[in-house]
Structure formats: C-alpha cells, structure tokens
C-alpha cells in the first residue's frame, strides 16, 4: 500500500521534470508559466478587447477577443457567404455590384475604425477591397456590412482606407497605376499613359454614408500605404510610394534602382480650398455605391458617372514628395502627429520625417527638384532621425501611450521597440514567422491603449499541427505593459490576418444590437405577423411570404408551384428575443441557405426544375422542437391544373 502511494508521487514528479526539461530546451518558447494566466479568460467571462482582423484573401473580417484569441464572428464583406446567405439572398446581392458586374470576392487588407478627435469611437469599421477597388463600411452596432463604395480610376486599392482625425475623409491610393481614364494602349507606354490616383472619400458625420469627394491625379508610381495626419498634422495625409522608376515589368529588379522613393504629403485642407475655387475638373467615369438599409433589410445600388479630379499642376502646395530610402511600405504617424515613420523594405535604416521640419522646408523652398510639378523636398531638410538597425525589411510601425514605437521587420521576423525622439532601440523580440503588419489597440490613433501588440504573421510553418500543404494562418499576442515585450499566445486566424484594429470591449459591447425591431421592418416583402403569411402568384412569379417562429413555418404546406416558376421565399423571423435566428433551406436550391435574425426579412430565389415534393426546414437549431420545424412544397408540371394552396 505504502509503496503504491510512493509510486503515485514519483511518477508525476518525473513527468513534471521531463516537461520542465523540455521547456527549458525549446529554442523559441522560454517560460510560459505566467503567460497562460494572462490570456486565460475564464468560461463565461468576457475579453478585454475586441480585435477586428482582415480576412485577407477570404474577403471578410473576423472578430476576435483579446487576450484570449478566441474567434467570435466572421463578418461577410466582399465575399459571398452561403452560411448566412450574404451575396446570395435577393436583399444582399446588390452589395457586391460594381462597374464590372457582381463580384463575389475581394482581397480585404486594412480595417480602420472611424475616429473622433483622433480616437477610435466605435461607430464604424472601414476596410478596403484591393482587387476591384472598393471600400466597405461595417456598422459596429450590428456587425454587418452596411455600405460598399467602388473607387474609380484605381487599380490595386491597397493604400486605404485610413481615416482623418474626425473621419472627415477615408483616403485611398492606387497601388497599380493604370491609364486614367482607362484605354487600350501598349504596356510599354507606361511612362506616357499610366497614372496614379489618390482618392478622398467624404464620410457623412451622422450616417457614415460615403461619397467620393475628390481624386488627385499623380505620377504613375505604385502608391502603397497611407495614414492621415493627426494632432499637429491634422489636415494632411501621407502616402508611401515605390517604383519611382516607373518600371512596368520585373519590378523586383527594375523598381529597386533608385536610392530613394517617396512619401507623398497631401494637404487636403488646401485641396478643399482649390475645390471651392472651382479648380476641380469633372471627369466621366463609372462606379457603384451600394448601401444596406437596416430598416428595409435591403441593399440598393446606385451607379455614379462623374468624379471631381484635381491636378497638382493647377494646385500649388497641394502635394510634396519626401524622399524615403528604397521601396517604403508602411507609413505611420506617431500619436502627436509630428513624426512620419516610413518602413523601407530594402533599407537598412528606418527614416522618421518631421512634420514641422517639412513645413519649414516648404516655406524655405528646400526643393531637390520636382516630378510633374510636384516638389521633392530635401531629405536632410525633413528628416528628424533614423532608427539604426531596425531589423531586416522593416514594414510597419505602431505606437503605445508611453512614447515608444514598435516596428515589424519581415525578413528578420521580429518586432523592434524603439523610443520616439531618441530613435534608440530598447527591445526586440522574435515572431514566428515573417511578420507583416502589427497592431496595438488604438496604436495608429492619438490614444493608444498600449497593453498588447499583435503580430500578424505571413508564414506559420511548424507552429501548429500540420494540415496538408495548406496551413493555418496565424497571429501572436505579446504583452507590452513592461519594459520587455513578452510572447503570450499564438492563435490561428481566417484568411491572411493582414492588418487589424482593436478597441476596449466596453466601448462596443453596450451598443451591440440584439434584435431588429419587427415594427420597424420596412422590407417590402415582410410578413410581420402570421396573419400576413401567404403565397401569391403573378404570372410565373410566385412569392411565398413565410414567417418563422419556434418551432414552425407559416405556411408549411404549399401546392401549385409549377416547373418554370420563379419562386421567391420571403422569410421573416418573427422572434423578438436575442439569439434566436432561424435558418431556411430547401432541397435543390442552387444558391445557399438563409440565416434570418430576429425581426429580419431575407429572400431566397428558387427555380424548381423537376416535379415532386420538396421539403424545407430550419437549419439553425432553435428549440427542443427544432427537428419539427419543417414544411413541404409540391411542384407540378408546367401547365398542370394543380391549384395554388397553402395553409
């Protein structure tokens, strides 16, 4: 007996020492014994921050909790989602309308909160679509995409959507220069025909509605990233650009010739003055604005055909180029607005420009020359300092609230922490692997909540169990509350977690919508009570006004549908309590299911092709009698005499 007890003590002790031995030998781990408690959010309790991560090439936005790294929600933005019916339902299809037709996908890169006084205000989240240039606005009460605007005269809408201090504008720049307006030309005529554009999208302060304010036509470089000025630099916006060589082939060599590329500084308040003076030219183009009406539960598209364009040649003082070492990528502004940090992929130093020195240099006309009438300022006249040895391939910088900056270095896979003002490096920590953007909650605003930094990595390799050639995407959470950055957690993400934003949970959670009020449902096809549930035929169009409640549909037996009919199921969820969605699916539907929130109406189009009986049912487990929530549609031959019947 005693011996047995002893064995029970010894075996765990051995196991423990084996574990400890392993930990101490692991090359990248270190001691995580207190990290676990820092990311542990006990069951039933809530995270401290909401993090919104771009889904990259998934085209969506994902919502995580920090510090737990738990995934809460995927918000459909640019990609159809058969799970909810987004982009498949009749109401949501117009959200994906563009001048190139309905596009079911895009590449979503940079989420950005709306701001008031330079601080994230929790009203909206903007995100860009790269491929077919668009900007979406997500409502942070409903966590739904409520608007998408297409950007004309643009290609590769990468440098967007970054907001000005009070969300006066969302800015967007073209990564790929193209002929403006588009035309059929030889690609080798790049230097002659290709142009870039910088767009300022005006945001209505009350409704958030986006309108293309104006575009600036700029030399045909690749405009890569942006950030608007704030504090002292409010009124300006900054855009990094590479390929000042204007190469059109093998850019990895041909666009890496010049010693320096640029950060373009745009004085948008001056642009407003020039517009008021009538310096803007109205140019014909074509772009869509799609808006989701949350009372009608319906998206509407409008086609616009004109845009106001400013040419820097007619507008002196509108734009300046700040020389910046080789192929800059990110351009980030410190919380005061004075310092402009530009990460150069091929540079060995991280240049920090000074806004006040820039103003002085402009006043003194410290120009090196110009490109198409845009003055190039002298590097030494605008530079505040250089961070030496910032890692290889420095890309992006975010800030904390204690005067520190954190720069991601892609090639050397690390985060480098340095002091704003003295430019000295204080700390560096490896990331696994190949970090792209990094994110501190509020870290690109005037008021960072500098408790954590999240590394958004490009490569995962051996960090998780392998899943075939395609591996999970991944982010890493670091504690930055002390002097030393400390790795706390790896967590998988959807798509490529390209960039992210985070905000204290208390700002959003109190406003989070719970239901759509049925009284306010203005959908033209809503059935707002079971009395209104019905089936109507007009020619070969059959409209089923269907209601859902736990645990039945009304009507649930429908006869008299014929082959060749175009059937619309207008499904209204009559529930008025939190967390009671109902689903709708019918056999043979070639589109998707519908997931209908309380008080909402969604429509699925259905074209029956074969005679027979078609069951439909609720897909979202709603109650004890969920399995009973079903119905039948009878489909007869075209021209049959089966009468239209429903219960």
């Amino acid at each position: 007996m005693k011996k047995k007890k002893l064995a029970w003590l010894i075996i765990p002790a051995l196991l423990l020492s084996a574990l400890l031995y392993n930990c101490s030998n692991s090359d990248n781990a270190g001691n995580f014994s207190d990290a676990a408690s820092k990311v542990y959010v006990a069951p039933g309790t809530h995270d401290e921050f909401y993090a919104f991560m771009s889904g990259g090439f998934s085209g969506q936005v994902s919502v995580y909790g920090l510090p737990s790294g738990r995934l809460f929600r995927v918000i459909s933005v640019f990609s159809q989602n058969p799970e909810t019916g987004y982009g498949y339902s009749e109401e949501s299809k117009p959200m994906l309308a563009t001048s190139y037709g309905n596009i079911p996908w895009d590449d979503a890169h940079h989420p950005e909160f709306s701001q008031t006084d330079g601080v994230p205000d929790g009203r909206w989240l903007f995100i860009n679509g790269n491929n077919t240039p668009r900007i979406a606005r997500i409502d942070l009460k409903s966590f739904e995409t409520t608007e998408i605007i297409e950007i004309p005269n643009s290609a590769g809408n990468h440098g967007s959507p970054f907001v000005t201090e009070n969300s006066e504008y969302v800015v967007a720049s073209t990564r790929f220069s193209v002929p403006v307006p588009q035309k059929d030309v030889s690609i080798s005529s790049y230097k002659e025909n290709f142009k870039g554009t910088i767009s300022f999208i005006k945001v209505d302060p009350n409704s958030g509605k986006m309108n293309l304010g104006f575009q600036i036509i700029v030399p045909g470089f690749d405009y890569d990233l942006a950030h608007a000025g704030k504090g002292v630099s409010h009124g300006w916006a900054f855009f990094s650009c590479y390929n000042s060589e204007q190469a059109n082939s093998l850019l990895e060599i041909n666009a890496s010739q010049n010693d320096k590329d640029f950060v373009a500084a745009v004085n948008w308040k001056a642009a407003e003055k020039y517009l008021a003076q009538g310096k803007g030219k109205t140019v014909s183009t074509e772009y869509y604005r799609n808006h989701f009406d949350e009372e009608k539960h319906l998206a509407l598209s409008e086609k616009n055909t004109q845009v106001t364009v400013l040419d820097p040649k007619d507008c002196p003082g509108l734009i300046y180029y700040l020389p910046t070492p080789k192929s800059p990528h990110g351009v980030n502004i410190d919380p005061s607005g004075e310092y402009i940090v530009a990460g150069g992929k091929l540079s060995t130093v991280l240049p920090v420009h000074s806004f006040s020195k820039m103003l002085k240099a402009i006043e003194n006309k410290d120009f090196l020359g110009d490109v198409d009438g845009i003055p190039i300022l002298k590097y030494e006249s605008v530079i505040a300092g250089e961070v030496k040895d910032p890692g290889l391939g420095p890309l992006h910088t975010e800030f904390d609230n204690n005067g520190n900056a954190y720069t991601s270095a892609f090639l050397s896979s690390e985060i480098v922490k340095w002091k704003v003002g003295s430019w000295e490096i204080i700390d560096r920590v490896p990331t696994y692997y190949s970090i792209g953007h990094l994110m501190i909650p509020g870290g690109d605003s005037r008021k960072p909540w500098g408790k954590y930094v999240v590394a958004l990595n490009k490569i995962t390799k051996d960090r998780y169990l392998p899943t075939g050639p395609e591996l999970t995407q991944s982010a890493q959470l670091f504690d930055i509350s002390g002097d030393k950055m400390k790795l706390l957690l790896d967590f998988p993400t959807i798509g490529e977690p390209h960039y992210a934003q985070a905000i204290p949970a208390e700002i959003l959670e109190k406003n989070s919508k719970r239901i759509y009020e049925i009284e306010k449902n203005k959908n033209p096809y809503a059935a707002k009570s079971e009395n209104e549930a019905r089936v109507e035929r007009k020619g070969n169009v059959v409209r089923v006004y269907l209601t859902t409640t736990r645990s039945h549909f009304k009507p649930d037996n429908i006869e008299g549908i014929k082959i060749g009919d175009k059937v619309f199921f207008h499904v209204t969820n009559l529930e008025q309590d939190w967390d009671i969605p109902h689903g709708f699916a019918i056999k043979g539907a070639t589109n998707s299911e519908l997931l209908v929130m309380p008080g909402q109406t969604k429509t699925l189009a259905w074209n029956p092709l074969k005679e027979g009986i078609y069951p439909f049912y609720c897909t979202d487990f709603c109650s004890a009698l969920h399995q009973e929530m079903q119905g039948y549609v009878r489909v007869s031959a075209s021209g049959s005499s089966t009468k239209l019947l429903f219960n």
Partner: protein
Amino acid sequence: MKKLFFLTAISVLLVVACGEKRSNSSNDELAKKEKMAKIFGLTVFELDNGIGPIKEKITLLPIDPKMVEEGKKLFDTKCAQCHKLDERYTGPAQRDLVERRSPEYIMNMILNPVEMVAKHPEAKKMFAQYPTQMTFQNVTQEDARKMLEYFRSVDKSKK
C-alpha cells in the same frame, strides 16, 4: 428524503393553487403560502403574481375598448405565432387566461418570461407541457398592459 420534501412542496402548491381563487384567504392559507413561497425562494406576492417588473397589485377599471384594440394589434404581431385563443399551439390557448392567472402574473409573464420559467413553479409546470421557452418579445410595460386588456375582453366568462 429530498423526494418526500419535493412531493410535499408540490402538494402544498396544488392546495395553494386551488385556494387561490377564493377571495378571503384565511390565516391558515396565508401561512401555507408563506411556507410555499419560501421553498421556491419567492415572496408571497411573487407566488401569486409572478416575478418581474410588476411588483404591486394594479387597479382594473372597466374594459377600455381603445386599449383592447391596441392590445389585439400587439398580440397579433408579437404573440399570435405561438398562442391562439382557442387551440393548443406552440403555447397554451389564451381565451381563459384571466381566469387562470392574476393580471399582474400575466404582465410579468409577458415582460419577464425567462426568469419566470426558471424560477416560478407555475411557469415551470407550463414549460414541462409546452417545451418551447417563451421569449420576451421586445414590448414595453404599457404594451403588456394593453395586451392584458385584450385578454380581459376575449374572456367568455366576462361576456
């Protein structure tokens, strides 16, 4: 032992429930009610009138036809998908509701169904018979009062 206790509780409840209709409850009955309420962690008022925002008896005046009309509209939009007047549906038939429940109980059930089903012995019994959790349908106290007026108007014993 626990079972015995529970059975006693149920039988006390039945006795109380039966006695509820009598207008003059004796001291004896009050004592029983108090004991009963204690078992379920409720007050005597809650036992008779439900748990929720209605914490006092309300005064009923003669039926107000305007409130009835508005109450019917609310009932049709918010409740009729689960409750019919004369047939068992997702929930119980409602024509005789005011005979079965006190006015305050009706309003508390409309305004606070989840807590009612979790804590009130009568609501728990109903949940066992109708296994779909009744939901709060986003109505105000005023709305609930109007629906009460509608229930008063449809009751056959009043006609």
